[in-house]
């Protein structure tokens, strides 16, 4: 710690860069989940993505980026579709059908992981925490193995691709997403297909969760999807400001969380998620205090007027 080491510093940079891209993509997608009241769907998809990854690996035998993305997106869409049709056909409440579907898919995923522990590059632990500390060691080499140049961690490139996809699709589809989110009936009358945008959003959620999987694990993604977006929701006055605020919150959580994990020697991913929660608590506290102050202020005004 005393001597400045360039290699260590580089590792930290890779970890931080990966974490902040993960947090930013999650926050942007999470905004739409919060607004469309589908927070639980985000929870469900982030769980079942595990099955997608395991199956993709078992079937194809490779853990290349594109196979993982494909497997995760397929299972994510299946989760969304299954919960919706179960809700429609069996007349169960929608949260109940979400619960039944994702617990089943996640269980199958965990069972497969424990069956093939030796053969898969996954274990129960990494399902939970992810291994962001090991991210810099799993690198992609451009060109052939011997002479090619090392271009950086695999997880970083994966999340960079997904981040760009999320960013571009939100920018391009901004108006449509806005209409579908706030005025579904208007969207319907304008001929905007609501199911298309619903499944489009679910695709984004699945891609984000799978890309975050290496870094933060299946379950902590939920915290990054929901908490920064919900904090932004407390303050924001428009969709645009909500998106910006959510990204801001997510970046703050990454920095604070990283410091926290360094201080406590705890899991980086869990600490980031915890700091997102702490930031939300601080926001809530400030809002409550201001609410009380305002109330007192009005009461005073009322008293002086009466007097």
């Amino acid at each position, binding site marked *: 710690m005393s001597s400045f080491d360039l290699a260590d510093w580089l590792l930290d940079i890779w970890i931080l860069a990966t974490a902040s891209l993960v947090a930013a993509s999650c926050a942007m997608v999470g905004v739409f989940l*919060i607004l469309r*009241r*589908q*927070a*639980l769907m*985000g*929870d469900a998809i982030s769980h079942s993505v595990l099955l997608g990854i395991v199956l993709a690996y078992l079937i194809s035998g490779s853990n290349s980026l594109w196979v993982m993305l494909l497997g995760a997106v397929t299972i994510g869409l299946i989760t969304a579709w299954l919960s919706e049709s179960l809700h429609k*056909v*069996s007349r*169960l*409440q929608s*949260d*109940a059908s*979400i*619960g*039944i579907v994702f*617990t*089943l898919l*996640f*269980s*199958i995923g*965990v*069972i497969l992981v*424990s*069956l093939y*522990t*030796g053969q898969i590059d996954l*274990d*129960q*632990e990494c399902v*939970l*925490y992810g291994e962001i500390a090991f991210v810099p060691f799993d690198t992609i080499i451009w060109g052939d193995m011997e002479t090619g140049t090392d271009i950086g961690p695999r997880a970083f490139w994966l999340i960079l691709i997904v981040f760009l996809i999320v960013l571009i699709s939100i920018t391009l589809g901004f108006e449509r997403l806005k209409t579908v989110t706030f005025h579904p009936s208007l969207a319907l009358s304008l001929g905007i297909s609501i199911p298309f945008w619903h499944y489009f959003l679910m695709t984004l959620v699945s891609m984000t969760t799978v890309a975050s999987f290496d870094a933060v694990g299946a*379950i*902590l993604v*939920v*915290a990054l999807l*929901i*908490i920064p977006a*919900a904090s932004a*929701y*407390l303050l924001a006055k428009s969709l645009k400001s909500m998106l910006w605020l959510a990204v801001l919150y997510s970046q703050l959580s990454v920095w604070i969380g990283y410091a*926290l*994990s360094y201080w*406590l*020697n*705890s*899991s980086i*991913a*869990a*600490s980031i*998620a*915890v700091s*997102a*929660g702490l930031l*939300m608590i601080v926001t*809530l506290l400030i*809002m*409550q205090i201001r609410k009380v102050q305002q109330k007192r202020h009005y009461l005073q005004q009322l008293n002086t007027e009466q007097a």
Partner: protein
Amino acid sequence: MNGFEPYPEIGFMQQAWHHLAVFWSFEDINATWVLIGSLLLGMSASVIGAFAFLRKRSLLGDALAHAALPGVMMAFLLSGSRDAEVIFFGALLSSLLGFWIIDWLPKNTKIKPDAALAITLSFFFALGLMLLSYIQTSEMANKSGLDKLLFGQAAAITEDDIQLLIWVTSIVLLTVLVFFDKFRLISFNRLYAKTLGVHVKFYEVLLAIMIVLSVVVGLQLVGVVLMAAILLTPIAAARFWSHQLSTLLILAALFGAISASLGAQISYVAPAMPTGPWIVVSLSILFFISFIFAPQQGLLKRYLDYRQLKQRVVQENILRTLYKLLEREHFQRNHFTLAEITALRSVSTADLTRSIQRLIKKHLISEKSNGYSLSEEGLLKAIKLTRRHRLWESYLSQHADLNSEQVHQQAERIEHILNKEQEEQIVAELMEQLDPHGAPIPKLPSQNLRETKNK
């Protein structure tokens, strides 16, 4: 810790059978305890989960189970012991805190209930994992096994755990038994319960505490992550079999007990297997069996009903078409060809011939060389249907201000489901002899007789 020791391929099945035999011979006292524990847990969790389901808060258990994790870790950090009671107490406290937050957030901020659930769940879980990773890198004694709380591990359960489990589940089941009426009332109609002077808030909190208790006590066996399923899936499966609450609860308890003991056995036989996922998989199989095969509301039964209705509609339509043809010929000719029928009603020929065969079997129409004719019984039925169709048309045009084209569409559907009482009610309302298209509303033969007698 996660080292899955690969069994030698040949000996594996024998070994598994041996374990299973030991499990069921009740020689291994620990295995027997695990079995009893899992049965009790399955029962109490599914019964209490049923009330959460009925109150439309199916995923509450999920959030509460996740919320228990930091409490467990805190309790371990502060006390340094892994006593069942200490862990239980810590989990209980943090789960209750989670419950309070889930309740508080939507009431005091603009955050919606579903988001509040997801926020609490993920924040508490992250906190728990952070503490767990802190514990694992620290130098504390007997820290191993804490991570088994995440997915559950039947083989890691101690006798202390089981005793606590038995106590708590018995308390939960007894409480449900004692306050059954009150719980039922607030689950189905909260407002009505209030007007009856029931202390709703008290029973709601009591119910919440029962949920928290069964979640927390089940952590060792089922694990944090999948606790949701054992609360939710049994009642969702039971719902296809009955509408009676007591039956529902008994069924849910049965489903819960069966799958919990199955999961425990699998995990006991193959110690590398986590219990929770196997419980969930067996529960889900029970759920899908119920969903498809349940005798009253199963998918199969509903499909068969639907097909039967569809067939009946096609058959009734043919009868009515024959009557219409008869009417057009002024009741002079009673034999009509297939072509004449299809000219009036567009049905695919395959459907038509199949339905006609069925009608012939029922002796409603008879087949002759020059075509098909209504039998006496068939005529009666055709008259009845035509009468209902035209009555409904007149009723709609008089009382609902629909034009004659619209009324036809409606009557096409309603003629198949009107019953005798409704028919008489309409007749009492109307003084019509003709429908809006000007066709006479046919009378049933018995009515004809009665009217001629009156003259």
